C-alpha cells in the first residue's frame, strides 16, 4: 500500500475511532492528544524519510488529473503540519488543557495532509477546503464563547476565498492551450483571482482582523495551530499557480508593504503578547505574499522558508509555558533568529522578479515581521509554576527545531547571498528597542477594522431581508392570498345569488325563450 494514501486516511480513521469508540469503550480524554501526536509523528516520518513519489488517482473527482505527489514542496508542507500538530497533540495531553477535541484536530490534520500532497486542480481545491473547514472546527471546539467573533470572520473569508479558488480552477481548465503560447503561463486575471484568494484566507492585511482576535481568545493548542491556515493558504496557492505570478510582483510588493506597515503600527499598540503575535503572523503572511510571485524557486526554497517563518511564529505561545531560564532564552533566540534569516531570504527571493530599483523594498517587510515577533516574545510573561515548567520547556523546542531546519535547508540548498542575512539582526534589534521605547498607554483593540466590517455587513443583511422578505415576499404572498380567496370567498357570493334569483324567475325565462327562438330563426335565414 502506498504510504502517500495513508497520510490523509490515517487521521480520518483515528478520528472515526475516537468518535465512535467512547460508546463502547470508555477512553480517557488525554488519550486523544496522544493519538494526535502519533499521527503527526507518522506525518513527519514520511516527510523526512520517504523518497519522492507520485500516486495517480484518476477516478477521484473530475478531469482525472488528481494525484498525490511527494516532492520538495510537499515535504516542507508535511514537516510544517506535522510539527504543528505534534506540538498541539502534546499540549492536549496535559490534563489542565481545556482545548479543542481531538476529533476535530485529527480531521484538520487529514485535510492539511491532503493539501500538502495534492496535485491537480480539483484535489488541491478539496485539500484547501478540508484544511480550512477543519481549522474552523478546531476553533469551534474551544470552550466558552470568546472565539465566536473571530471564527465567524474567518469562515466568511474562507467561503469567499473558496469561491474564488473554484473560479480559478474552472477558468484554468477552460482556457484552451491553443490560445496562449507556450510558456506564457496564466493570464493576469486568473493570477489576480488566485492572489486575492490567498489574501482573503491567509490572514494577509487587510483581511487579517480575525487573526489577532482569535489568538487572544483561544487555548495554547489552538494558538499553535493558528499558523496552519496561513500555511494552507500559501501552499495551496503555490500549487495552483506553479509558475508564480511575475507580472503581479510590483502589486504584491505594494500590498505587502502596506500590510506590513499597518500590522506594525497596530501590533505595537497592543496590550497582550498574543495580540502582538497575531499581528506578527499577519506581517509574516504579508511577507509570504511578497515572496510568492517569484515562484517556489529551483530548490523549492519558498516552501522551506514558509516552514521556517510559520514554525517560528507558532512557537511563541509556548514561551509562556516556560519559566525564566536558559531554556526559555535559547528557544526564543533560536526562533527569532530562524525567523529573521528566513525573512531576509524571502525578501531576496522576491527581489528576483522585481525591477532592479525597488528590489530592496522587500527588506522592510521582513524586518517588520521579525520586529513584531520580538516584541511579542518580550511581552510574553511566564505563567508556568516551577514544577510543570520542565516538560513545557522541551515542548517549546519542537516548533523551533522545525523552524531551524527550514531555514537551514533553504539557505544551504540555494545560497542567497549575505545581504539576505541583514534582516535578522535589524529586526531583532529594532524589536528590542521598540519594546523599550513603547509608552504604556497606547492601546488598540485587537482586530482593529473587524468591528466596522461586521457592522457594515450586518446592515447589508438587514437591507436584504427588508427587500426580500418584507417587501417582495409579503407583496407576493398578499397577491396569492387575494387570488386564492376567490376559491371560497364569500363576498361575491351574495351578488351572484341575487343575480341567480332574478334569472330564475318565470318572466325572465319566457323572455329568454322568445328571444332565442326569434334570434335563431333570424340567423337561420341568413
Amino acid at each position, binding site marked *: 500500500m502506498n504510504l502517500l494514501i495513508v497520510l490523509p486516511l490515517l487521521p480520518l480513521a483515528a478520528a472515526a475511532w475516537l468518535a465512535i469508540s467512547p460508546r463502547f469503550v470508555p477512553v480517557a480524554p488525554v488519550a486523544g492528544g496522544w493519538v494526535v501526536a502519533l499521527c503527526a509523528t507518522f506525518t513527519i516520518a514520511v516527510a523526512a524519510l520517504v523518497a519522492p513519489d507520485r500516486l495517480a488517482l484518476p477516478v477521484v473527482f473530475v478531469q482525472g488529473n488528481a494525484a498525490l505527489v511527494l516532492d520538495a514542496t510537499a515535504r516542507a508542507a508535511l514537516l510544517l503540519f506535522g510539527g504543528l500538530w505534534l506540538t498541539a497533540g502534546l499540549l492536549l495531553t496535559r490534563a489542565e488543557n481545556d482545548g479543542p477535541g481531538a476529533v476535530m484536530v485529527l480531521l484538520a490534520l487529514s485535510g492539511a495532509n491532503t493539501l500538502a500532497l495534492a496535485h491537480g486542480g480539483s484535489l488541491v481545491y478539496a485539500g484547501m477546503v478540508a484544511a480550512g473547514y477543519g481549522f474552523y472546527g478546531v476553533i469551534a471546539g474551544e470552550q466558552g464563547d470568546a472565539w465566536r467573533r473571530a471564527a465567524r470572520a474567518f469562515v466568511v473569508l474562507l467561503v469567499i476565498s473558496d469561491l474564488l479558488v473554484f473560479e480559478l480552477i474552472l477558468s484554468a481548465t477552460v482556457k484552451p492551450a491553443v490560445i496562449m503560447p507556450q510558456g506564457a503561463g496564466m493570464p493576469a486575471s486568473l493570477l489576480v483571482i488566485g492572489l486575492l484568494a490567498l489574501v482573503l484566507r491567509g490572514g494577509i492585511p487587510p483581511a487579517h482582523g480575525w487573526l489577532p482576535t482569535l489568538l487572544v481568545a483561544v487555548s495554547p493548542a489552538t494558538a499553535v495551530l493558528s499558523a496552519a491556515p496561513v500555511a494552507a493558504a500559501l501552499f495551496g496557492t503555490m500549487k495552483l499557480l506553479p509558475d508564480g505570478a511575475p507580472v503581479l510582483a510590483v502589486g504584491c510588493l505594494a500590498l505587502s508593504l502596506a500590510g506590513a506597515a499597518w500590522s506594525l503600527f497596530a501590533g505595537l499598540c497592543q496590550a497582550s503578547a498574543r495580540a502582538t503575535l497575531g499581528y506578527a503572523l499577519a506581517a509574516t503572511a504579508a511577507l509570504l505574499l511578497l515572496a510568492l510571485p517569484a515562484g517556489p524557486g529551483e530548490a523549492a526554497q519558498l516552501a522551506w522558508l514558509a516552514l521556517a517563518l510559520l514554525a517560528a511564529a507558532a512557537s511563541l505561545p509556548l514561551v509562556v509555558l516556560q519559566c525564566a531560564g536558559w531554556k526559555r532564552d535559547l528557544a526564543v533566540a533560536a526562533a527569532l533568529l530562524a525567523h529573521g534569516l528566513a525573512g531576509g531570504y524571502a525578501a531576496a527571493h522576491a527581489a528576483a522578479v522585481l525591477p532592479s530599483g525597488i528590489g530592496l523594498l522587500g527588506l522592510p517587510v521582513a524586518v517588520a515581521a521579525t520586529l513584531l515577533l520580538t516584541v511579542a516574545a518580550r511581552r510574553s510573561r511566564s505563567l508556568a509554576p516551577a514544577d510543570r515548567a520542565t516538560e513545557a520547556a522541551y515542548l517549546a523546542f519542537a516548533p523551533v527545531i522545525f523552524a531551524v531546519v527550514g531555514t537551514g535547508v533553504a539557505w544551504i540548498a540555494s545560497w542567497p547571498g549575505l545581504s539576505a542575512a541583514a534582516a535578522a539582526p535589524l529586526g531583532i534589534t529594532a524589536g528590542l528597542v521598540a519594546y523599550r521605547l513603547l509608552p504604556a498607554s497606547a492601546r488598540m483593540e485587537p482586530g482593529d477594522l473587524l468591528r466596522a466590517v461586521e457592522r457594515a455587513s450586518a446592515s447589508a443583511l438587514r437591507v436584504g431581508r427588508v427587500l426580500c422578505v418584507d417587501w417582495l415576499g409579503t407583496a407576493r404572498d398578499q397577491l396569492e392570498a387575494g387570488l386564492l380567496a376567490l376559491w371560497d370567498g364569500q363576498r361575491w357570493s351574495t351578488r*351572484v345569488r341575487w343575480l*341567480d334569483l332574478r*334569472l*330564475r*324567475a318565470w318572466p325572465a325565462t319566457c323572455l329568454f325563450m322568445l328571444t332565442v327562438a326569434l334570434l335563431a*330563426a*333570424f340567423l*337561420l335565414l341568413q
Partner: protein
Amino acid sequence: MSEWLAGAPWMMLAIMLPLAGALVAFLLPRHSALVGLGAGLLTACAALAVMLQVAADGRQAYQLGGWPAPLGIELVADGLSVLMLAMTAVVGVAVSVYARVYLADSPDKVRRFWPLWLFLWAALNALFQAGDAFNLYVTLELMGLSAVALVALSGSGPALSGAMRYLLVSLLGSLSYLVGVALLYHAYGTLDLALLSERADGGLQLAVPLGAMIAGLLLKTGLFPFHIWLPPAHGSARAPVSALLSGLVVKASFYLLLRLWFTFTPEGQGVPLLLGSLGATAIFWGSIQALRQKRLKLLVAYSTVAQLGYLFIAFPLANLEPALAWGGSIYLALSHAMAKGAMFLAAGSIMTQGGHDEIDELDRVVERMPLTLAAFALSGISLAGLPPSGGFVGKWMLLQAAMTQGSWFWALVIIVGGLLTATYVFRVLGFAFTKSPHEHERHDVPATMEWTALVLALGAVLLGFAAPWALPLLEGVLP
C-alpha cells in the same frame, strides 16, 4: 355472428323489454325490485346487441309491423344512436343495482320507482332509435312525464315544487317543439327525417320551425338561461333519480338537437355562434354557482348546468374540423353521463352515511367511505377533463378543433371551464379529508352502493382509452 344477431329484432326488443318490465313491476308491487332489475339487465343486453349489429353492419333500420315510411313507424339505429343506447344501458344498469339497495327500506317508494324508471328507459331507447320528427316528439314527451314523476317520488316539499316547475318548463318546451313539427309538416308534407333532409332547402319555411324547435329543445336540455328548473329538480330528487336525470334525460334532448342539426345542416355562422355563446355562459355561470353551494347535491346539480355548456361549444367549432368537434362533444356527453351518474350516486351514499350533505361538515368521510370518495374523485377528474379519462379525450378533441381554426376564445373558455370544475370538485375533496369540529351521526352504507358508484366512475375513466373503438362508429353520421 351477424346471422345470430339478425335472429331477433333487437331494436324492437330494446324498447319492448323495459315496457313489459314496467307493466309487470306495476302489477306485482312486492317483487317490483327484482322484476325491475331483471328487466334492466335484459334491456342492457338488447342495447348491446344493437350496438354489435351496427358496429358490424352499419346503419340498421326496422319497420314496425312491416309498414314502410312515411306511413309507418321506422326505427333507425346508426352510430350515434348506438352510442347513446350503450350509454343508457351502462348507466341504467348501475343505477338499477344502486336503487335496489338504496330504496330497500321504503317499500312504497319502491313500488312506484321501478315502473316509472323502466318506462323512462323505454322512452329513452325509443327516442334514440326514432326515425321521424313526430316520433321524436312522442318519445320526448313520454320521457319528460316519467322524469317529472320520478322527481316527485321523494314526496318532500322541495321535490314537489321542483317537479312542478320541471313539468311546466317541460311542457313549454314540448309545445314549442310541437309548433315546429307542425310547421315542418305543413311546409314539406313529411316528417321522416331522411326525406326531410332531402327536401329541405332553407328559407323562411325552414328557419321558423327550426328556430322554434331549437328553443324548445334548449329549454328541455337546460342550457343557460333556461336552466332554472335543473338545480331544484336534480338537487332535491333522490340520488338514483338525480343520476338518471343528469346523466340521461338531458342528453336525450341534446341528442335530438344534434339529430335535427345533422339532418338539416344549416349554413351560416349565426346560430352556431349563439349556441356556443350560450354554452360558454353556461359553463361560467354553472361553475361559479357550484363554487358557492353549501350542499353537495346542489353542487353536483350546478355542475351539470356547467357541463352541458361544453356540449354546445362544438357548434361554432364544427366548421373546419367537423369530425373532431362533434366527436369531442359526443364523447363529452358520454363521459359526462357516466361521471355525473357516479357523482350523484356517491353523493347519495354520503348523504345516507351522515344524514346530511353539508360540504364543510364532511368530517373525514374518506376514512369511513373510501370507495365512495374514490368514485367522487374519479368522476370529478373526468368532468374536469384531467387525464386519463373520457372527459380529457373529449376536451382534447374540442381544443384541437379550436386551435386548428385559430379560435382563441373557445379554447380559452374550455380551459378556464376545466379549471373551475377542478376547483369545486377538489373543494369537496379537501373537506372530505378534514376533520370537522362538530359531531355527526354515522350510519352504515351497504357495500353495493359504494361499488356501483365506483364502477361507474371507473367506466368514465376507462372511456378515455376507448376512443379508438367508439369514434369510428360516428363516421357515417356526421356531416
